[in-house]
């Protein structure tokens, strides 16, 4: 968990700093400065348009994190209430409708649909967010419903019903806080998948558009020079691997830390 948190924090810090300051403006092309080796002015060198690689990576982190974060946010905001609703009405037609709707979305290959959406509505970061976010909804709905179902049979939920509380209120007060740990862990996993999906869409030219920097497009731009200038592909590749690895390790660590059965000895 420690390594995961550190890796994630490094990329998050880079993304935040890029909001205020980057070493060089990445929208300014300067062909005279192209393909420079690392130096004091350009710690990671420059690309074939003379843009500073470090600045590109920092802005790319911002793009990736923003897209993945909003996509996870869509999944949580829509999927969790749907899952809680299905669990509260377990066995009824609402449950059936929600879960079969989930199956329907699951039945489509997500990346292909994402490509379809961007192909129809035009490539942009916003459409990438929507495409990734829609496929997060059934994941969170399932996790929320699965976590909520066993809780509905517990006596404290029965006590709340005896106290006259309705299903919605019980879901908010008793169920949601007690499945929060499941959701947090799932969110970190979906976050890392979102980073990968954004990189894939951008690589195909369907994500963030120039001049916005993006790790996926940096890879795409670098592939024609992969034999002569391999560092242009390796650096964004390493960034993607590092970010995804960090999030997965963080998710595993959170799962252990938030599991009361594993935590009890420490208390």
């Amino acid at each position, binding site marked *: 968990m420690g390594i995961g948190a550190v890796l994630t924090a490094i990329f998050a810090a880079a993304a935040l700093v890029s909001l205020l300051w980057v070493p060089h403006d990445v929208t300014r092309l300067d062909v005279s400065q192209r393909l420079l080796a690392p130096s004091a002015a350009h710690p990671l060198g420059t690309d074939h348009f003379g843009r500073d690689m470090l600045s590109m990576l920092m802005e790319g982190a911002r793009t990736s994190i923003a897209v993945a974060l909003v996509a996870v946010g869509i999944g949580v905001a829509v999927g969790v209430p749907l899952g809680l609703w299905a669990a509260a009405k377990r066995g009824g037609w609402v449950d059936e409708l929600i879960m079969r709707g989930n199956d329907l979305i699951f039945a489509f290959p997500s990346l292909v649909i994402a490509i379809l959406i961007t192909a129809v509505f035009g490539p942009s970061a916003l459409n990438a967010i929507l495409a990734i976010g829609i496929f997060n909804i059934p994941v969170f709905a399932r996790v929320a419903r699965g976590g909520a179902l066993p809780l509905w049979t517990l*006596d404290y939920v029965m*006590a709340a019903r*005896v106290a006259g509380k309705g299903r919605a209120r019980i879901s908010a007060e008793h169920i949601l806080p007690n499945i929060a740990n499941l959701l947090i862990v799932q969110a970190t996993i979906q976050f890392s998948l979102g980073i990968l999906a954004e990189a894939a869409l951008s690589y195909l030219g369907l994500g963030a558009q120039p001049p916005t920097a993006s790790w996926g497009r940096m890879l795409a731009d670098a592939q024609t020079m992969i034999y002569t200038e391999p560092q242009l592909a390796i650096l964004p590749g390493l960034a993607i691997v590092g970010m995804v690895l960090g999030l997965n390790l963080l998710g595993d660590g959170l799962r252990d830390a938030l599991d009361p059965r594993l935590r009890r000895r420490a208390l």
Partner: protein
Amino acid sequence: MTAEPSPTETAPLIAVHDLSLAIHGEAILHDVGLDIAPGRVTALVGESGSGKSMTALALIGLLPEGAATTGAAMLDGRDLLSLPEREWLNLRGGDIGMIFQEPMTALNPVQTIGAQVSETLRLRGTPRAEALRIARDRLDRVGLGQLPLDRYPHQLSGGQRQRVCIAMAIARRPRLLIADEPTTALDVTTQAGILQLLRDLVDEEGMALLLITHDLGVVARIADHVAVMQAGRIVEQDATERLFRAHAHPYTRDLLAASRPAPRERRASRGGPVLQADGLTRRYGAVTAVDAVSFTLHRAESLGLVGESGCGKSTLTRALLGLEPIQAGSLWFQGEAGGIAMTKAQRAKMSVVFQDPYGSFDPRWTVARILAEPFHLTGRPPDAWARAAEALEQVGLSASDLGKYPHEFSGGQRQRIAIARALITEPEVLVLDEAVSALDVRVRAQVLALLDDLQQRLGLAYLFISHDLAVVRAICDRVLVMRGGKIVEDGPIARVWSAPASDYTRSLIDAAPAIPEGWAAS
């Protein structure tokens, strides 16, 4: 304490001396000494956390990680405590078998019972046909002669599953069988059959049985020798009848007293009807869970509702609390329509205490918030905090506990918190759904005394639901006996106890293991 030689003393099969156990440095057992003789039932009795199960696990080499033992447990000149795991593989299932409390989870749901009973034999190289023949023989022995080997566990009742577990444990004719609370999860009528089977196996096969239990009634019924455990020590041990008649240790005395709840004096009902059911029927599809049940609960009265699992008492409870609709009949509460039709103000006058002291509270809520939850029915009063503190004090806890979380309390304390939550809206009727069934006997006695005291002070009417007639007798004036969704007996508890009108009630009373009246210590 030393065990005096009994008249039928034989050389012990396993001799445990000075067994001490620590898990991760925390001392669990202290100097446990016990002789387990062949052909006899040795009982290890104690409350939860007394170390009785750990003693058993030490004898079958299944202690949890981080356990360190000292002392010895000798079997055939070998010390079991120092055996390497490889040698245990021969002993377990061979010389020593074990059965567990929960027959629902002790069997693999995707394997037939024939495969499971013959598994221990197949592991030792017995050919398949021979192993199945022995499995058939063992299943016949445990009274499942009618049951084909290709049945799956879900097709069996709880009692049948426990019999399959016993057949598995005795498949290779072990010399010692360890039974850890073998009947705790079973109904009383089923329990009686399992206890008789265990006793017969010991008598006929010369096996030694180490019986772990919290129930002194079970001990009195089948054990030859009893060791009483408290906080990791054996405080007293002796031949069963002698220990019951002439125990020396105060803890044994407390346990015995608490195991025999005294029937309470009959009280005249002080008021008119508060809760009435007339022909109440609840169906789930084609299944009728509650079938035309009628009864009346009077003000300040205790009415017992007794029945075995699946008899419909929980369904009836949910209907009374207005959580589920009924399909026929009527329900009246305080003179108005009850059940699902109750208004919030009416619901506040009827509250409930559940069985499980661990599942009754949201683990993330403080006691103050838990206690205030029923105020949802009445609107939160300005003095909510003071009333929560008052409710806690009424059940023997203190206002300083308001900021704590449920996990900081013991089982008995949690049940007191559950009662405090039920009292907070000043109800007329308290539904106690197996409210003392999960508690140790001494804690149970305290909670029963508290309930009795609260009833006298507050004039509450109780609907006391239980599977245990002896406990109902300690708190109730009248009792209903329920079977298959119907009320089969309704009358004053003293009359029902001494002269039950239905055969079913008679079988319930006879099957409940009780300490013989004559064994009461002078």
